[in-house]
């Protein structure tokens, strides 16, 4: 209401109106459209929640209502007065933001950007906090659970470092003494690692030339190969001396045989030769061809060496010094050559002797071999002969055995056949014997069996006779039982003062009768009501007759199709009727009643029933029940009579 008045009071300017609406749209939004307020209906509530009155200031100052939401920059500007609007050109000054008349000048909605930014920032902060919390939780849980530790360190970035840091701290806390040295593997810290060179292991190179890798080369000698370092040099020295000492012992006799010995001896001689060659500066060379046994290559070599030495000495300045030595050497050369020749001859002789000995040996061996071969051949021949003989004997024996066995088999077969024939004959004989015996026995048996059959026949006849007699006795007994049962039923009926059911007696009777058709028919003829309820006695019948007769007498004078009037008349007139008695003559109701009474007194139920059956009309209707009772009694009596006569008849029939 207030707002409406305010709206009305406001100057009418389209732009300002729009701004106003924008600034106050909260109030518009909160109002429900379907809420209808009657004037005065809310007056009770007024003191409870009066809506804050919209600012009564000019619309230019709406910030009083919502200073908290609209910043100063977004405050809508003062709308221009209509005169200004009209006078102002379409183009606004460049410095000021466009505040035209249209909706384009409307300030951008101040609210939306703010909450958005804040929301985003809040979301970021929350995300950060959450992730930090999650990370911390993950680190903690990884310290607790091994399984999670594996997962965390493997998949979460920097998880391993974080977990490792905490583990380190825990470890330090537990073992303060080893605080300096981390218990984790040094690899984490980046210490020098053990690297295996690319060309490690076996290679074609000898171990010595791997000098550059001496520091870590395992192939080189060092402490790792042997702990005893000091003893080594001495051992090596010893080793070095050993071969020098060994030189002499290795020389064997065979070595002496070779010309090497001579060659070896020469270097010893050369030393003095060198000394000798000195004095004779121009010592003559030894002539190769002059020397005896110049053909020997060894000698030639020696001469050559000597000549070389001489030449060297000759070339030298101090050749005179060695002249004497060289001369001596030359003389020695001759001796050496002679030695060589002698040695050669000796060798030749020895070789010849050896060859001869070998020849002789070979001859002997050849002879021996031939002898051996001959002997072997002879032996083999003898062996073969023996084998041949034995084989022949064996064959002969096997053939003989075969023949014998076949002969035996043939004999056996023959014998068997003979035996079989014999057996057959015996069997035939036995059969014949058996048949004859059987015949005899049969004849004998027939004679006796006939007597036996006669006996059994007579026994059968006897049995039959006794069976018949038994049947007779049984029949007698049965009839006796029947008679007794009938008597029992009769007795129960006569004894009873009151109608009593006699189903059990009848059932017993039927049982005893043993499906006798006559008895069954007689029992079936009885009305089931009779044996289920019992039958009235004679006295009861008479008593009831008297009552019935009184009623019948009242209806005695009724015509056919009598109405109420005739009934009344009959009732009245029947009082005046004369009573008849005895065997009255006539067919009127009174006479019938008198006759019936008389018959009943005599005990003739059958006659009484016949008389009463002769009535007609109402009289018959009234006496219907009494007649039914009488009939039932009669039926029972008749059935019992029939059964008794049947029993009597059966006793008569037995013989």
């Amino acid at each position, binding site marked *: 209401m207030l707002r409406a008045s305010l709206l009305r009071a406001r100057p009418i300017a389209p732009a300002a109106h729009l701004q106003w609406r924008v600034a106050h749209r909260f109030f518009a939004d909160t109002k429900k459209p379907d809420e209808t307020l009657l004037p005065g209906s809310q007056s009770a509530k007024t003191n409870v929640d009066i809506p804050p009155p919209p600012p009564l200031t000019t619309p230019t100052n709406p910030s009083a209502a919502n200073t908290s939401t609209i910043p100063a920059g977004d405050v809508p500007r003062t709308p221009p007065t209509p005169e200004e609007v009209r006078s102002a050109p379409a183009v606004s000054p460049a410095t000021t933001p466009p505040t035209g008349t249209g909706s384009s000048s409307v300030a951008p909605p101040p609210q939306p950007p703010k909450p958005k930014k804040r929301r985003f920032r809040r979301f970021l902060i929350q995300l950060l906090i959450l992730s930090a919390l999650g990370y911390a939780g993950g680190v903690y849980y990884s310290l607790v659970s091994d399984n999670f530790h594996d997962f965390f360190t493997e998949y979460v970035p920097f998880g391993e470092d974080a977990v490792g840091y905490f583990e380190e701290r825990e470890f330090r806390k537990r073992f303060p003494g080893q605080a300096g040295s981390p218990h984790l593997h040094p690899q984490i810290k980046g210490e020098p690692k053990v690297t295996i060179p690319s060309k490690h292991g076996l290679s074609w190179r000898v171990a010595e030339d791997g000098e550059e890798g001496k520091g870590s080369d395992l192939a080189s000698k060092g402490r790792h190969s042997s702990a005893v370092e000091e003893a080594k040099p001495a051992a090596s020295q010893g080793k070095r001396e050993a071969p020098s000492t060994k030189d002499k012992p290795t020389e064997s006799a065979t070595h002496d045989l070779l010309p090497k010995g001579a060659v070896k001896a020469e270097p010893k001689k050369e030393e003095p030769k060198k000394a000798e060659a000195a004095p004779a500066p121009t010592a003559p060379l030894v002539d190769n061809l002059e020397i005896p046994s110049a053909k020997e290559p060894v000698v030639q070599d020696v001469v050559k060496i000597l000549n070389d030495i001489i030449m060297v000495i000759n070339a030298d300045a101090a050749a005179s010094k060695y002249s004497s030595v060289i001369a001596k050497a030359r003389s020695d050369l001759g001796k050496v050559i002679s030695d060589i020749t002698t040695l050669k001859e000796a060798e030749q002789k020895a070789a010849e002797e050896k060859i001869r000995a070998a020849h002789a040996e070979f001859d002997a061996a050849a002879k021996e071999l031939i002898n051996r071969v001959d002997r072997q051949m002879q032996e083999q021949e003898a062996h073969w002969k023996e084998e041949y003989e034995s084989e022949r004997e064996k064959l002969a024996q096997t053939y003989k055995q075969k023949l014998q066995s076949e002969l035996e088999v043939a004999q056996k077969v023959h014998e068997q056949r003979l035996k079989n024939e014999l057996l057959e004959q015996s069997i035939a004989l036995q059969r014949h014997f058996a048949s004859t015996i059987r015949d005899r026995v049969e004849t004998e048996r027939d004679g006796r069996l006939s007597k036996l059959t006669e006996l059994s026949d007579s026994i059968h006849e006897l049995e039959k006779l006794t069976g018949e007699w038994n049947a007779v006795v049984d029949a007698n007994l049965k009839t006796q039982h029947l008679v007794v049962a009938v008597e029992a039923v009769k007795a129960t009926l006569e004894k*009873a*003062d*009151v*109608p*009593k*059911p006699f189903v059990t007696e009848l059932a017993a009777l039927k049982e005893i009768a043993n499906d006798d058709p006559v008895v069954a028919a007689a029992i079936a003829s009885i009305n089931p009501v009779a044996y289920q*309820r019992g039958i*009235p006695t004679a006295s*009861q019948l008479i*008593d*009831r007759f008297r*009552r*019935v007769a009184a*009623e*019948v007498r*009242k*209806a005695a004078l*009724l015509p*056919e*199709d*009598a*109405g*109420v*009037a005739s*009934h009344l008349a009959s009732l009245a007139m029947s009082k005046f009727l004369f009573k008849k008695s005895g065997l009255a003559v006539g067919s009127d109701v009174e006479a019938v009643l008198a006759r019936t009474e008389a018959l009943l007194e005599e005990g003739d139920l059958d006659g009484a029933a016949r008389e009463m059956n002769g009535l007609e*009309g*109402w009289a018959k*209707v*009234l*006496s*219907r*029940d*009494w007649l039914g009772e009488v009939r039932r009694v009669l039926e029972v009596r008749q059935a019992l009579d029939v059964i008794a006569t049947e029993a009597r008849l059966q006793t008569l029939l037995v013989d």
Partner: protein
Amino acid sequence: MSDSSSTTPTAPVARTSRPMSEALLNEKWDRCLSSMLIRSGLGLSFGIVFSVLLFKRRAWPAYVGLGFGAGRAWEECDSSFKHAAAPSKDGLRVLRP
């Protein structure tokens, strides 16, 4: 059975479903009298009501009503007597030409 007979030495128990034949007529009389009373009473009361409401308290409507009731009762009684004498045709099929 025997004990029941000893306790009730009187005649067989009267069957409630069907009255004994000798009592048929008496029963009819009873019914006729009772119906006569009721119907005549009803007729009388109706007559009285009519006389009060319509006929300015004249006596004759009452008598007429009584006569109607009594007559109706008589007729019913008569018919019941007439039909009872003839053998009942229950369970019999009537062949008409």
